[in-house]
């Protein structure tokens, strides 16, 4: 490359606006790309109190007035927001002294803006598909859901490459939109190790006292309390685990199953052994993850499974159900324990095994942390992403658009 790579990210969420997983993903990816010498321009939606333009660790962030147009419903709002976003992005691109080399869109929420920018500036468009409508809804049932799915299909059609964060999502997206193999590429999600490194410097012994007695092992679940996250499988496994080891179960998160789960705990007479914390602030969550003797991810459906990755970065041994993205993150007996999905006995076995054999669990911690450093480090993910950009630009340079 003669000049540093110039990339424009389109995303509907970027800190401090956090709705789901796209926001931290784009935050860390853009930061790590900047550290690798890429100039990143992020165009995103506005947020109360956040500036319209700022430079964050070398990343240029532009926030678009996204509620300018009144809208009858969410999907129409998305397309109108895309008009404002594209206008802003087009103006920035036209005025920049250096040219944008690649437009990179995140999910259908910025589909029309990305497609439009590709054609008016004749530059390659890449997309990261973080999820799909057909996956989220388990089928397409309404006109709005079909419209969103068709917009996703159009976006993947227009994209030069479609990036997914797990092999599971690669095969799902290939199935959902009928894409050719050579258009799909897997780049995992990352985790920031430094954040956990800093947390470990705190007095975690003292912090731990708020959650369990010194003789109790700490079993941690983090996730929305909804069916597909499988907290009920863990709750039903608690008596079986307590038969073998003394432990305290900390369940972080909220959702429609919360009352049902507390009712089960009450009926078992185990209120003193289970703590429902609800939604937790980031600092306490990080400290808990670093203090846990085992982190359990009993999901029934999981496109990626970032919670398992975070636990491994926090050096907490993991027990996960063998499904979706989790199957790829964890290697059984080496970096964690895999159990049968939706199987109480299997889960109880896995948790008990980790809690009752310290040599085994320490081995898992060490191996898992090393695996995270090797495969899920944002710096390496940024380098992988740069290689994808360079590959695309190599192909582009031979096209009549160049």
């Amino acid at each position: 490359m003669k000049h540093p790579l110039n990339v424009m990210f389109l995303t509907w969420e970027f800190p401090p606006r956090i709705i789901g997983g796209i926001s931290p993903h784009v935050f860390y990816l853009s930061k790590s790309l900047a550290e690798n010498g890429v100039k990143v321009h992020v165009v995103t939606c506005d947020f109360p109190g956040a500036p319209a333009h700022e430079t964050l660790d070398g990343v240029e962030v532009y926030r678009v007035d996204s509620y300018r147009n009144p809208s009858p419903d969410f999907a129409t709002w998305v397309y109108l927001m895309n008009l404002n976003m594209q206008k802003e992005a087009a103006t920035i691109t036209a005025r920049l002294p250096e040219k944008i080399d690649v437009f990179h869109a995140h999910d259908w929420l910025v589909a029309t803006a990305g497609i439009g920018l590709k054609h008016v500036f004749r530059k390659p468009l890449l997309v990261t598909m973080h999820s799909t409508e057909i996956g989220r809804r388990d089928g397409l049932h309404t006109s709005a859901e079909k419209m969103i799915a068709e917009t996703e299909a159009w976006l993947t059609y227009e994209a030069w490459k479609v990036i997914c964060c797990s092999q599971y999502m690669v095969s799902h997206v290939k199935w959902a939109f009928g894409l050719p193999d050579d258009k799909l590429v897997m780049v995992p999600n990352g985790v920031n190790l430094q954040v956990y490194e800093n947390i470990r410097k705190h007095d975690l012994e003292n912090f731990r006292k708020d959650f369990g007695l010194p003789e109790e092992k700490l079993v941690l679940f983090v996730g929305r309390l909804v069916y597909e996250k499988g907290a009920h499988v863990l709750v039903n496994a608690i008596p079986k685990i307590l038969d073998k080891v003394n432990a305290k179960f900390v369940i972080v998160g909220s959702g429609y199953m919360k009352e049902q789960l507390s009712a089960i705990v009450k009926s078992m007479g185990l209120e003193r052994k289970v703590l429902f914390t609800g939604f937790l602030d980031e600092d306490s969550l990080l400290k808990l993850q670093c203090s846990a003797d085992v982190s359990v991810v009993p999901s029934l459906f999981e496109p990626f499974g970032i919670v398992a990755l975070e636990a491994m970065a926090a050096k907490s041994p993991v027990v996960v159900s063998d499904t979706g993205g989790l199957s790829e993150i964890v290697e059984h007996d080496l970096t964690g324990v895999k159990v049968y999905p939706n199987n109480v006995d299997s889960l109880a076995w896995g948790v008990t095994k980790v809690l009752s054999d310290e040599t085994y669990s320490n081995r898992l911690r060490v191996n898992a942390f090393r695996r995270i450093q090797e495969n899920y480090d944002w710096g390496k993910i940024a380098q992988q992403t740069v290689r994808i950009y360079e590959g695309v630009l190599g192909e582009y340079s031979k096209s009549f658009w160049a």
Partner: protein
Amino acid sequence: MRVIIFTWEYPPRIVGQLAEYTSNLSTQLVRNKIETYLVTYHPYMTGLTEEPNGVKTVRVANPVRTHIGVLTWVLTLNQEVERAAANIYYQANKSVDLIDVFDWHFIPAAVILKNALGIPFIYSVDSLEDHRSHQADMPFNMAIKSIEWLGFYEASIVTAKSGWMRDEIFRIYQTPKEKIHVISPSSSTWINDVLKIYALAQGGASRA
């Protein structure tokens, strides 16, 4: 001079009177030595055609077939209008002098092309949402009005077909009257009036 006309109806697809008007206009422009392209919608008859009258038309379809309303249909269709216009621009050695947009439907595409590629546009008003849906102030109507407003704000020149319409645009959107030019289709000087406005707007006329 190379001009692109944006209209959501054009023969053989006729919805109202805009199809006939834009057909007549484009024919007259070609006769007056203006290289005329026209981008419009058709559900299946897509692509570039040189019509017998010398107008080069590009018809685009909507890649998204299922919709929940006219707004989502229009907003997604705009990307294809944008793509067609960008193709004309690049194939013509990056030189298009002017885009003439009829009504609100393809205003989004014109606004992006102006900001991205510096092509000025004229907003030719046939009707306004306030008159089509009188006293309707639901979010749906407000959204259409916000697109009309964007058009008035971003256009180099606005044309209206009567003095009454010019006053209405001023009343509803506070667009400066000097920016709004009246071109009466029934006037004997009609095509010359159009050509004068085109000459004025070419190369990005000032925002009066």
